[in-house]
């Protein structure tokens, strides 16, 4: 369906109705985020909309909190934020390191096993997150009971990696498909071993896709709530979980400021991914 066709065949009431519905839909999609962003700049103490004055006080309060001052819970915001970043870093590095060779094998080999493997790696996508959280929790607890092994950060990193793998693999596959086999053969004809050819030719040409995968994995991990909710402990929790425990009682504007900062980070990262992947098929 093209733009030209749209204007020619859809006129009058149909177009109005469709645009209106689309507008409602987009509003629903964007409304919560817009409200948060606006309210975080509010100068009032209460949470009434629209704000009667604008100010940055909640941001300065947010920075204080994030630096760890005035913390009243066992884990400060600073620690939670650090944990979020570390788990995110582990997730992105591990999933990319695993997916690049996997993508290479999937694209360059032949054989029916490939379909099975690709199916296997889409499983985490279709699995209900709640059940995944429960499953990992049971596994981790039983492990702790029977062997006394405490996983620390890995309690969160391991599930996050599983959630990120399908997306990272998809990115790496499309990056890999852009590198022709003849380039590798040319490198080999010049004396490069297959491994050397992969490192000198294939990986550099996959760079944008790999980078996109890294960022995407980080975004997924950083924003993850459901599974982290089941897996967190007294000592190890991510920023979203920290925010949750703070706001169970009430919602205060400082949290909104923090939220806006997170939104800003997410938007910037997604824009970066978009630029890297530009045109070469989308994430979905």
């Amino acid at each position, binding site marked *: 369906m093209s733009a030209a066709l749209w204007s020619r065949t859809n006129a009058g009431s149909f177009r109005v109705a469709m645009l209106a519905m689309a507008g409602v839909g987009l509003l629903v999609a964007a409304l919560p985020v817009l409200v948060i962003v606006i309210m975080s700049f509010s100068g009032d103490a209460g949470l009434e909309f629209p704000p009667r004055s604008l100010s940055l006080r909640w941001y300065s309060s947010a920075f204080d909190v994030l630096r760890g001052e005035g913390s009243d819970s066992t884990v400060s915001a600073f620690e939670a934020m650090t944990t979020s970043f570390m788990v995110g870093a582990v997730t992105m590095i591990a999933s990319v390191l695993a997916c690049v060779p996997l993508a290479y094998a999937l694209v360059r080999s032949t054989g029916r096993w490939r379909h099975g493997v690709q199916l296997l790696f889409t499983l985490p996508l279709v699995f209900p997150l709640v059940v995944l959280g429960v499953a990992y929790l049971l596994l981790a607890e039983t492990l702790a009971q029977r062997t006394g092994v405490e996983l620390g950060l890995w309690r969160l990193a391991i599930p996050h990696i599983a959630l990120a793998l399908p997306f990272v693999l998809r990115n790496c596959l499309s990056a890999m498909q852009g590198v*022709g086999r*003849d380039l590798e*053969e040319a490198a*080999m004809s*010049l004396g490069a071993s297959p491994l050397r050819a992969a490192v000198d030719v294939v990986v550099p*040409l996959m760079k944008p896709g790999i980078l996109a995968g890294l960022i995407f994995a980080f975004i997924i991990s950083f924003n993850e709530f459901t599974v982290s909710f089941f897996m967190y402990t007294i000592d190890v929790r991510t920023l979203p979980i920290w925010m949750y425990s703070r706001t169970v009682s009430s919602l205060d504007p400082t949290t909104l400021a923090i939220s806006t900062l997170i939104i800003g980070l997410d938007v910037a990262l997604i824009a970066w991914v978009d630029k890297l992947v530009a045109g070469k098929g989308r994430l979905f």
Partner: protein
Amino acid sequence: MSAQTPHLEIRGLTKRFGAVDALADIDLGIARGEFVCLLGPSGCGKTTLLRIIAGFEKADRGHLLLEGKDITELPPHQRGFGMVFQSLALFPHMTVAENIGYGMKLRGTAAAQRRRRVEELLEVVQLPAIADRPVAALSGGQRQRVAIARALAVPPQLFLLDEPLSALDAQLRDSMQIELRQLQQRFGVTTVVVTHDQTEAMMLADRLVVMKQGRLQQCDTPTEVYRRPANAFVAEFLGAANLLPGVVQADGAVNVLGAHVGASSRLAAGSAVTLAVRAEDVRLQAVGAASAPHVVGDIEFVRDLGPLAELIVRCGDERLRCRSADAPLREARVGQKVAVHFDAQRCSVFPAAHA
């Protein structure tokens, strides 16, 4: 040439893809410094053969020997061959200099020396100033030369090219053919080129290897292959040839088109044969002035192409393609009668079902 060990020897090479024989029992010897062209229609196995020589495919049976040493199992990156791919396969993320210098870099050559060699090669391929340009900024002809320079940077044992000029436009292709031949002569490197273009093969090769459906048809100098094709397929593949059914007479003459028109054969009398005669070897004369034994035919089509006239003459059931530089023929008209005969030296006669 003495019976010394050929530079590259191919013995009994066989390759199957599923139920199809891509290559059936190929035997071939290539001398040092020789320029060999593998020629044939698509699917004849020429590219497969080249890729097996390069090491990117493995034969099911047979051996490859380089100066007597068996290299059949050697992985491609240890063979020391230089290859130009059909797509050229220039590394898009490297500059021209980095592409050409890659082989040397792998061997640990110092940067300064690499640079010197790169510039030397660029001079040879007549692209002096482009060493630091990214590959994407080059034109088709320039990329072609960079690919060649890259393959020759570290002097290779064998120079392999897979349809190297197919992506160029006609004019560029013609000049590149000449350059490629000159380059090869200058470097003296043993070369194997795959092509489906008969003219290109004639232009480049010391020896033509004509292939069909995985088998060698003929392996000879271009002139020999052209003048004395081994069978009807080769005759037809190299230049417009007319293939006519005929019968051997008691005296050895071959009757074609119902008459003896100059060809003869040593096959048994009564054998069915196919006679191949090229368009330019069909002699046409005015009916009254005919000298040699001939057959009369009607002109069906005539066109003045500049240096030659192209005609189609119908004799009985057969339509003959003819090409001639004779002035009177250019003015011939459709429907005119003409005397047709063949120069016996220029005909080839093959047993009939032997295509």
